[in-house]
Each structure stands twice: as C-alpha cells, then as structure tokens.
C-alpha cells in the first residue's frame, strides 16, 4: 500500500498499523455489520463487483472455480449488495476539536481514516462528511482501497474552524443509500440535541456509532491559578479562580455530561464509545470495531 504522505499525521507507521487493523478487524466488521445486509440482498439482482481470496469461513458456494482453474488459487466472487455496506463517517472539524494534548483533531482524523480504510478494505462504501456548524467537506461513496488516498488528502487538508453544531448539522444532512452505518466522531460540545440527531439517523435506518473523543485535559482539567478561559471556537471567555471547589464542580458537570450522553445512547440502542485522545489508534479502532 503506497500513499503519498503530506504530513506526519498519517505516517508510514500509521499505514502499517492500518494493514494490521484490517487483518484483525475485518472479520469482525464483516460478520457483525454485514450479517443483516446479506439477508436484505437475497432475491435481489446480484451484480458482480470484485474477487477476493478465499479465507476460512467463506461460503464454498461462492468460490469461483474458473478462477481457481486459471490461477490455482481460491477466489470468492463478491457481489455489490454483499460488500457494500454504506458507511457514513461524520467527522467533527469544529475548532474545539483542534485542542488538547494529544490533539483531538489528530486522534479523530486517524480514527476516521482507520475506520475508512478498514471499511474500504471490506468493500464497503464509505462516505466521509466533515462538518462543524455546516457540512464542510464531503466525500461520498468511496469504494475500494484506492479511494483511500482521497480520504487521506481530505484529512491532511482539513481545517478546523467554526463552532460545533454537529447534532443539527447531521440532522439536516441529506443521508442517502438506505440502511447503513453512521459513525459520528466528535467531542460533542455541540448545541442542539443529541437525541434529535440519533432519531434522524435511526429514521434513515442507520446503525449509529458515536465516538466521543475528548482530550485528557478535558477529563482532568489542569488549572492552578486565576485564569481567563477562552473558548477556542467563539473567543468568548470566562474568568475563573482555580480552587478545589471549581475542579470538584467541573468533575461533577463532566460526569453529568457523559452520563447524560450514555443514557441517551443506551435508551436509543446507540453504540457509544468514549475515546480519550491519548489512546493509541489500534486501541481506539479496537474499541470501535468490537462494537460493530
């Protein structure tokens, strides 16, 4: 796999890891995500799409014996309906995501890239939507690994601006392609209502995954003096004097924030994955694909 690398965001080591992730994550992703989709494909027109090597567990019936005769290798015929799970990845690129140490933007982009790559590798159709308070960038219907470079390019050039309004923006997004998977990657510091977004996505027959990415400093704030806290998105500020009470109160509010999201997700049967930006990418991906 060779891609042109613009920056260190997606270095060669990251790409190597992606390959490994594909191997370890593929089956799970295929089994888990495609099970439903296969039953939907029965009886409908079967359009040939691609071959892939046989691997243990594949249906013998689908082995292309002609190809075997020619290459002496077992290949499986892939058909459109089987492999194309339409996956929408909604990546929050508001300014608030460009914060933290390690930076949430890096962690979230890597996660988005990794999930895209794994999906593309599984012959799923990936749509990447970068959004803040509007849809900023949109790469629809990418197929095959070759499309991954587009994703990389988009990620490399992605700018973090605007305010977080991912709930409203997703709710207004014209989601096409029927049943599928929607993965939202955001810090969820968003106006609007999470429940509205979930309802909308579920209405669009999406299986929803919410990847909640926060920086360690947002989990455990490190302030020890009188500060003017400036909002990275709006430039608004509030003055605080660091005190045990303040930190205690922050933790209380933070816990309420997380619990609230968890409860909404649970009540709607949404997969909620909390991810700290300090986690290694393989672990992040693991946490996501294990849910998928």
């Amino acid at each position, binding site marked *: 796999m060779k891609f042109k690398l613009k920056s260190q965001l997606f270095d060669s080591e990251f790409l190597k890891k992606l390959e490994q992730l594909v191997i370890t994550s593929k089956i799970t992703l295929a089994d888990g995500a495609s099970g439903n989709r296969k039953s939907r494909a029965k009886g409908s027109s079967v359009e040939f799409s691609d071959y892939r090597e046989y691997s243990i567990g594949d249906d013998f019936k689908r082995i292309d014996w002609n190809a075997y005769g020619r290459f002496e290798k077992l290949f499986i015929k892939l058909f459109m309906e089987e492999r194309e799970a339409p996956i929408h990845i909604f990546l929050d690129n508001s300014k608030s995501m460009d914060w933290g140490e390690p930076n949430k933007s890096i962690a979230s982009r890597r996660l988005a890239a990794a999930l895209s790559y794994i999906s593309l590798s599984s012959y799923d159709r990936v749509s990447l939507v970068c959004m803040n308070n509007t849809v900023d960038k949109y790469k629809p219907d990418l197929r095959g690994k070759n499309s991954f470079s587009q994703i990389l390019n988009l990620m490399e050039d992605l700018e973090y601006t605007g305010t977080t309004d991912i709930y409203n923006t997703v709710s207004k997004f014209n989601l096409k392609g029927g049943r599928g998977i929607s993965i939202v990657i955001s810090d969820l510091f968003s106006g609007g209502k999470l429940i509205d977004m979930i309802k909308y996505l579920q209405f669009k027959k999406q299986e929803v995954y919410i990847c909640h990415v926060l920086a360690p400093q947002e989990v455990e704030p490190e302030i020890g*003096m009188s500060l003017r806290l400036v*909002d*990275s998105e709006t430039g608004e500020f*509030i003055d605080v004097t*660091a005190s045990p009470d303040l930190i205690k109160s922050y933790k*209380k509010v933070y816990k309420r*924030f997380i619990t609230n999201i968890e409860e909404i997700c649970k009540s709607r049967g949404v997969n909620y994955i909390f991810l700290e930006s300090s986690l290694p990418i393989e672990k992040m991906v693991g946490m996501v694909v294990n849910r998928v």
Partner: protein
Amino acid sequence: MTFYNPWAFLGLVAVPAIIIMYLLKQKHNDYTVSSLFLWEEVLKDLEANAPWQKLKRNLLMILQIITALLLVFALARPFLNAVGSDVPHVMVVIDTSLSMKATDVGGSRFEEAKSRANKLISNLKPGTSVTLISMGKNVNIEENLSTNKARLIDKLVKLQVSNSTSNTEDAKDLISSIIKQNPETRVVLFGDSRMDIPGVNVEFSKISNNGDNFAVTMMSHTKTEKGITVLSRISNYSSGDANVPVSLYVDKNVFDAKNVFIKKGETANVYWDGISPDVSLIETRIDLNDSLAVDNSAWNAVNNTKENKVLLVSKSNVFIEKVAGLYNGIELYKTGFESIDEWKGYDLYIFDGFLPDKLPDDGNIMVFNPDENKLFEVVESVEYPAVKEMDETIFRYAEGFDFSIGKTKILKAPTWGREILEVTDGCAAFSGIFDNRRVIVFGFDIHNTDLPLTPAFPIIMANSFDWLLPESVNNAQNVYCGEGIEFNLGLNTREAFVETPSGEMLKIAPPFPAKIFDSTDEPGMYTLIQKSADDEQKFYFTVNVPSQSESNLIQSETLDNDGTNQPSKEEGARTVNTGMDLRSILLWLIVVVLLIEWWVYTNGV
C-alpha cells in the same frame, strides 16, 4: 454616636481606590479551552449551589474594603454616648480599705474595682476630665481634673489596697468641696459600701459577693504569776455556723491549737494559758481559707516592762507614797530637800513643797506646792478657791471634780505649759514639756485638800504617772494598720529606728522629737530600736488589721440601723452607665478581618 475626628471620613476614598486597584489588577492569564460548554455549566452549578460564589470570588477585595471602612471609622474616633454620661467632669472614687482585699469577687474586690474604673475611664467621652480619688486611711487625690486617659489609667493601675479602714468622712468632705467647685460632676464610687453625701448623687458600683470570712477581731494578753494569758476573740462573719481551727503561735512557733465552734454572726473568746513570760511575740491565727486572708492573724508584742525609778523629794507625804506604791512599775525612792547630789538616774522626780533652782539633768518632773522659782511664776496664795471642772487627760475616768482645796498657790503657766486645773483666782496646776522633759506642777499641798479622801485621787495620780512615765510607744497594743504612732523616745536616745515586720529599717530620729510614725500598713510585729551612747534598747509593738470594722464582708456592703443586713437599694446599679469608645472594638475587628483575609489568601478559598 459621636465622631470626634470626622475628618477621618475623607479616608473613605480608599474604598473606590481599592475597587479600582482590583479592576486594574484583575488580569487573568488567558487559557484557551476547546469549549466553554462545560465550564459555563460549572459556573452555573457553583452559583446555584452557593449564591455567594460571586462574592466569594471577590472575597479578598470585600475584606479589604471592610478593613478600610473599619480603619476609617476607628480613625474617626466613634463614641457611643450613654444616657446620663454626658458630663464634663467625672470623679472616680476607689475604696482602698482592707475589705477590698476580699477575694469573693474576681481576683479581689480591689482588682475588680480597678477594672471597672478602668472601663469607665476608657469609655468616657474624649475631653471629659476625671478626678481620681483613693479612699483609704487617707483620702488622696491621685489625679485632678485630668483628661489624659493613659495617665489616669496608669495612676489607677498603680493604686494599692491598704490594710486600714477607709476614712469616709474625709472622703465626703473632699467630694463635697470638689462638687462645690465643679457642680457638673458625676461621682462614681467603686467599693463595697455605699456612701451617702447629702445633695450629691453618688453612683455606687457595688463590688461584693457577700464572701464568707472569719477574723481575729481582738487579741490581748496579761502577765500573771503563772505566765502570760492570752485572750483571742474570733468572729464568724460567714453565712453559717462553723468550727473554726485556731492556733496560737509564740515567737513564731506553734504553741497550741483549738477548734472553736462559732455560730453565724457571733464572736467567741478563746483563752490561752501557761505561756512563758519570756516570749516577745504572740500570734493568733485562724487556719481556714476564707475570702479575706489578712484578718486571719493578729499579733501581740510582749515587752519586759522595766521598773521606773521615781524619787520623791519631800519632808513627808504618805499619800503620794501610798499611791505610788499602787502603781505598777514604779520603784519609789524618798529623800529630803538637802540631798541634791543624789538627784540623778531617776525617771521621775516628785518635788513636794519645794523646787530646786537647778533641775536634775534627767527625768521628768512633778511638783506640788512650789515656792518661788526660776522655772515659772508663782502669783499668790489663795484659800478655799472654787475648783472648775476641766476636761483634761489627767482627770479622765475620775468621775466629777468632787474635791475641795483649802489653800493653793496661783500659778502662771509658762509658754511651754498648759493649764490643767483652774480655780476661781487662776491656774492651780499646769503641765508641759520643758527642755524635752515632761513637767506637771500642782499649786497646792495634797494635805491642804480633801483629794486623797476621794476615789478620784489614785486615778488622777495614775493618769499623771501615765503621762510622766510614758511607754516608748503610746497605746502599743492597739495600733491598727495605717494609724500613726507617737514614740516617746528616751532622753539619752541619739538615734532611733523602727524595724518593720518585713525587716525594713526605718530611721525615725534624729531630728527630735520623732515625727509621728505612720508607715504601719503592714500588719505584724515592729521593733523600736533606740540607740544611746552606750546602750541599745528594743521595744516591740504590733500592728493589727482593723478587723472589727473591716472583716464583716457582708456588713461592709450595707447595714441598716438595726445592724441587720438589708438588700442594697443599689442592687440594680452594679453596672455604672458608661458611654463606649468604639475605637478599640473597631481595631480588634480590623485584626480579625485581617486574619480572615490572610486565611482566605493562604487557603485560596
């Protein structure tokens, strides 16, 4: 409320200054966060949980403003006026008598009195003049019309309580005369007994808790053949009957101890026998803790009375011989007129019908029926004069002047003498001190009167001997603390000292005659030491506390005419109305606020 330095309110500009400084100072370091999404919630949460959070954030500033305000108020000298305290002059009278040593109130009544007076003076309106009077044996103006509180309080603190009674009469006179000069005067008495002065409203700050007390109210001794017998009178001034342990100490060693049952308010006599006549100091002591410790002891000094040598120069006078023989302590010698060379070494010379041209070098003189002489003038001789009754010391205890004189010489009292017996034609007797010796001259011959036939004769003679043969210390057994003592120093004495119970040596002479000795505030045994050229004589005397008048702590509070304790009319007036100088309170508040500020600052609240 009055502010005595309203200019200080200009300092209020400090308040906006502090606020401005805070506004300028409050530059928070910018810290960019991803979003204020959670932080806004945090602030809402904090403010919802504690509505004063906003205040809390500015707590230091608020504390500093409070400090500044308190400081400005303190500098403005605020004074809370009390009703009736607005007078230009306050007279503070402190009772310094013995009963103020009682410990039934606080540390002692006296300390409490000083503390209350201190409070009164401290809280007086600035500019009020104060006269501080101590009322003990002597009534002293410690500070007159002073507006200097520090000085007044210094004087007040240095006041000492005495062991004597308080001279209320002198105090009343003094207060009355001051009031005449300053009619707008408020008089406040801090003590344990009220003082009523006609026409003067004396505010009484009563300092008494009716403490239980026992006292040795009297002690005396007599020498008998069996030794010394001591009488101690022990009084129970407590609120109940009591068994009182009493000890007798002889020369500072325990001689005997008894338990005496005394009913409430009564006095018991305790006798002690068989004490050796050689002792010099006897002490009665009550071994009990009570409210007033100093009256639990009384002392008596035992002096070996020397015999006075008396020379009677007479042809024959059986009456004088007999009466002198009755008088204790007289060793009588007789001689004729001619033996002038023998007139030496006697304490008293009695010249009967004769007075030599040259008086003996020593001793006092008593003369009957003198001839013409150089010492005084004999005017004439009269018969059957009428005797005028005179109130003289030598006639005390002699009831009436029921005697007649057949013949007497009329004398002219010299400048150093004073008439003591007057008859129709002039002076029949005089007394005086001439050349440092005591002289009594009677113009008549005893034989020409019926005086020897009257019961008054031995009394008059004894009185005369008392005066002519004085003890070194007058009334030595009955000296109370604070009282003055007159010493009768011997003619040969060159130097005289008094050693106090604490061992201090006080020189009392020369110059002669010795002044009245009044350093008697310390109870116990004193020693008069007279030094002559070749001799040193010691005379012991004791000074006791005036327990009879001071030991009844309940009585000293207030007594009705029938002697029963009555609730004081001033019961409700224990606290004397004072204004209040708020400065000290404000300064304390400043300290408290500064401490809070320091705590807030260090704890980062």
